[in-house]
């Protein structure tokens, strides 16, 4: 029997701070991770915007107007434009076919957020028939099909044809912990664009998820990442135990998958620690985020290199 020594990382390595240094950094693990960091380089940091409003979800009632306002505030801050409409127009034009990759399962993306995004795309000049909202092979074309998503385009070389049809992609993911990969955020959300996701659901904490960002169509067409952090899940998952849901009332926006996921991970970890009143590390460790940086070179997972802009409601921001 072959012994599993190659690439072995144990609990002991994590405690010593020698495993996935940047992951340890994001998790707030051990001073070792910090001491091993070089000072952040002088070049411009990657911006991730966190925008929150305590009125977004009150009890279980979702406020569409508030969410729409948060989205606009977030995108204008991300792209440093005076008006949100300028940012949308900067990103998308009338010539674009835009695919909005959402999440439908277990903790679905809030419809109010999707509708606000589609309205903004339409205002930016994108034609209604050129907007696709989809997850897996459930595809809606135009505003009328946002909820029903009746179209089925199928897959080519394991990639949904809707990805090939689009000229621009928006990744709208949920914010949740995940029993097999530690967390399921924007990187893992691309599993819903392929028909062989099982090849990424591997026993090594799904270490190869970062490879999804190297799929040429995804890499070249991705323009915006939005994390629906209105009501995240901080333990278990993807199946929901309501005990571990909380009204965070936030959205995260960015253009770097790895940076966005690193910030979201930091928030989830902080929530877990607060819930237990002591360190309660995500298990298994979400190593795929650090590896998306260090192995697949698809972005940064070093919080020192991320400019986190916090807007709106600051209470219990956890970061």
């Amino acid at each position, binding site marked *: *029997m072959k012994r*599993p020594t190659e690439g*072995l*990382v144990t609990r002991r390595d994590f405690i010593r701070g020698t495993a996935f240094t940047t992951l340890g950094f994001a998790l707030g693990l051990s001073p070792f991770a910090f001491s091993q960091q070089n000072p952040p380089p002088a070049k411009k940091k990657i911006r991730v915007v966190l925008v929150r409003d305590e009125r977004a979800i009150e009890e279980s009632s979702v406020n569409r107007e508030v969410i729409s306002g948060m989205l606009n505030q977030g995108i204008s801050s991300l792209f440093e434009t005076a008006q949100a409409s300028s940012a949308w127009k900067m990103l998308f034009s009338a010539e674009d076919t835009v695919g909005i990759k959402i999440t439908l399962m277990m903790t679905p993306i809030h419809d109010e957020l999707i509708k606000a995004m589609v309205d903004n795309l339409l205002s930016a000049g994108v034609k209604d028939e050129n907007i696709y909202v989809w997850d897996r092979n459930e595809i809606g074309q135009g505003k009328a099909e946002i909820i029903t998503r009746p179209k089925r385009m199928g897959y080519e070389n394991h990639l949904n044809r809707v990805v090939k049809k689009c000229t621009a992609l928006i990744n709208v993911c949920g914010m949740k912990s995940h029993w097999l990969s530690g967390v399921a955020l924007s990187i893992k959300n691309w599993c*819903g664009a392929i028909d062989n996701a099982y090849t990424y659901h591997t026993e090594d904490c799904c270490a190869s998820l970062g490879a999804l960002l190297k799929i040429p169509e995804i890499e070249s067409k991705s323009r915006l990442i939005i994390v629906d952090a209105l009501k995240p899940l901080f333990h278990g998952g993807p199946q*929901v135990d309501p*005990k571990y849901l909380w009204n965070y009332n936030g959205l995260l926006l960015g253009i770097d998958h790895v940076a966005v996921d690193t910030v979201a991970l930091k928030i989830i970890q902080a929530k877990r620690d607060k819930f237990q009143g002591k360190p309660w590390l995500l*298990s298994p460790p979400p190593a795929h985020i650090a590896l998306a940086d260090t192995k697949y070179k698809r972005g940064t997972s070093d919080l020192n290199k991320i400019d986190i802009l916090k807007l709106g409601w600051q209470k219990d921001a956890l970061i």
Partner: protein
Amino acid sequence: MRWVNKFFIFLIFLFNWGCISGESMNLNKLLPSTETGLKKTDSPKIYNRENLFDYLDGGAELYLAYDFQKLIVQKYLFSQDAFAQKKTLTVEIFQMSSSFDAYGLFSLDQDGEELNIEQKALYGYGLFKLWKDNYFIRILNTEGTDELKGMTIKMGKEISEKIKNKGELPQLLSFLPENGFVPTSFRYFHKFTVLNYLYFLANKNILNLSEETNAVLCDFQVHEKTLKLLLIEYPNALQAKRAFLDFNQLYLKTEAADKRNIVKVEEGKFVGVDLNDKYLCLVFESKKENLVNSLLDSVKNKLEKGGNK
């Protein structure tokens, strides 16, 4: 001849179709009645090992790790305007190949209010969980109000009463010492992905866990400290021995002792491993070596006596 072959293929198809629809029918019968005033959103959905991913995506792997067989999902509305507001109640009935595996799923999170419903049932924050025989049931209401709590528990009780048989608890439970044992911490599983979800040990399968191994992870409260105990049953002593050697070499980074090894690791803690025939017992999270030794001794005694009778 070709017609004969086609006829047999047709017969096989009919047989399989009969089996599937028959089993689906059985799961259907377990669903709660709608006498409570609840309205079904649509017809129930049935999932098997092949299409469970359509419902749970990556979550399906967890159920497959417990030898999942079938699932029926039925959603109910609990008020007229509920659909618009997405206020639904979802019943999930998982049929597993054994009561051990159904119990294993139930054991993964045992927080909640314990209910007097057979065999074991819990409720908390809008989620009802039940284990009976080879079924694991979840009923999730999105609101968690007192009114819905009553309705959810009533539905769960009805399902429990429809399941006539009772299942057995995993035998490994009988090998755990009573002293200091925290019953709600007991987790039963087979594969290392589940171990890593419960207590991350390594990104590789250094203990050689598989669908053929049975394992429990649980806490022991000793002198106000919590020790973690992992007990694994391998198919045979040879495989247990191999895992013992691998764990010593790859995790403890020491030469293996004959049958027991206790090593001081990070944070001043001790990790102990003990080999007993086809069983491997491991203790983590103790700052005192003698506590590790003592817990390993207690399990060893239980194993030698054949557990609680």
